[in-house]
């Protein structure tokens, strides 16, 4: 139990009075990859975005219930933390990577400039190490001052993960990070995530069951705003009709 990092209690979310998340309770554990699967519209992305409150960019959203974040052995309600601090601690990578209109190097420098007071060399060191971590360094090392928008989709996604990692989050949320990528890039990112889980908690939404199988420590299956099944082996041994249907589809 000590390893719980994010705890969700009685969480409900509605858009314009339409319930999208219906009374969910769940705990995410440190150093684990939790995969959330489910048909589109089941609320899996909403759940993910609620955890770092990025769901609140939309003004029509109402949430109730608690999400607790572990902090020095205590749990703290995320609604008591300022949004900025929360989003630094719980980073998110979305389906479509958005690079900032700077050079590759400056894109990565951006969070460092904001959060740290390191000197130039130290910053550079950090940027290079994170680039190596996402296996981008070899591809771009000669083009660091080139405009980041010219990168390929897979490179951009890795750049965005790298940028998020530089904020040194405790929890990393990923919303179908590989859905738009080719297999090679998918492999790279999957490998990266498996390696990252030693440092941080990872929660990933995916529609790709194979990917979930590959990454999982736990899998959650959601349907109609509820968690129907969860566990390690739910794909091999689906119990509910909904999951069976989903897997057969």
């Amino acid at each position, binding site marked *: 139990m000590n390893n719980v990092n994010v705890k969700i209690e009685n969480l409900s979310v509605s858009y314009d009075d339409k319930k999208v998340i219906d009374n969910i309770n769940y705990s995410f554990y440190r150093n684990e990859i939790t995969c959330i699967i489910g048909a589109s519209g089941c609320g899996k992305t909403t759940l993910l975005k609620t955890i770092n409150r990025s769901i609140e960019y939309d003004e029509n959203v109402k949430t109730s219930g608690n999400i607790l974040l572990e902090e020095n052995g205590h749990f703290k309600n995320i609604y008591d933390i300022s*949004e*900025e601090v929360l*989003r*630094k601690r719980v980073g998110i990578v*979305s389906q479509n990577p958005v690079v900032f*209109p700077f050079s590759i190097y400056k894109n990565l420098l*951006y*969070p460092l400039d904001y959060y740290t007071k390191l000197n130039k060399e130290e910053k550079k060191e950090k940027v290079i190490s994170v680039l190596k971590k996402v296996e981008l360094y070899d591809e771009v090392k000669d083009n660091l001052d080139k405009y980041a928008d010219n990168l390929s989709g897979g490179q951009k996604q890795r750049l*965005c993960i790298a940028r998020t990692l530089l904020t040194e989050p405790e929890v990393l949320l990923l919303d179908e990070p590989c859905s738009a990528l080719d297999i090679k890039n998918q492999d790279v990112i999957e490998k990266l995530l498996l390696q990252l889980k030693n440092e941080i908690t990872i929660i990933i939404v995916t529609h790709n069951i194979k990917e979930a199988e590959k990454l999982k420590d736990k899998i959650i299956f959601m349907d109609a705003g509820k968690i129907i099944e969860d566990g390690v082996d739910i794909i091999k041994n689906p119990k509910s009709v909904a999951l069976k249907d989903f897997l057969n589809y």
Partner: protein
Amino acid sequence: MTDIKEKIFKNIIQVLMVLTLSILVFLFYFLIREAMPLFDYCKISDFLFGTEWMPVSFGNELKFGIWYFILGTTYVSFIAIIFGLIFSTGIALFITFSLNEKLQKYIFAILDLISAIPSVVFGFFGLQVFSPIFFKMGVKTGNCVLLAGIVLTIMILPFMINSLCMTFFKLKKKYLIAASNLGIDKWYIIASIIIPESIKSIVLSTILANCRAMGETMAVMMVVGNAKVFPHLLGKGETIASLIALEMGTAIKNSPHYHALYAAGVVLLILTFVINQVVRIIGRDSE
């Protein structure tokens, strides 16, 4: 039967559209026609760069130099766009990033209201409220180029804000969420991403607003002091538009004075046109 109707409909539409689009041609044609006879009395270079304006003869030599008016026009509009730049950027940022959709609607309604407030009222307002302040500060009569610039600023704001908001909305949609997801403060994002990215469109909308500013007549005329001298920030000046408004009513038809005022109008028109075209070409390249 309906084929004919379709044809009639299309033709009516086409003719009226062509009429609309050709207004500009007429405008140029007639203004230039009325302006041309001036150059029997005076050389183009003397007209543009001459500094003396004495269009009515009391036995003295006629002089038609509009250089100071061109400078006055440029000066006043320059002040207006500098202030306008700061204010409109501020307000456009506020509208885009600090207001929800409902409040945005209200603010846009207020902007439309500002652009509909008669310019005489703005002039009157400047004359009654700002002019005494300048007078106390030691400006003769209180009316000056700076005051005209300030009044003009309020008048061009709606226009500038509208075009800036369009840019800001686009950039907000593109970058705000991605950057906020890094936990970065909204105003830091604005300062580091939104503003640098929109510099170009800020500049373009400023130059376009400059066109508006140069053409504004009544409000400026009421507070700029109207002296035919080299314009100074806290001194008087006169703009081309206010020159025309002041003297057109008194110019006798087909007198040199009359033609000179038309020529001044043509200069004003060409100034706005050239600026407009340059902005368009630059703007098109960026797309």
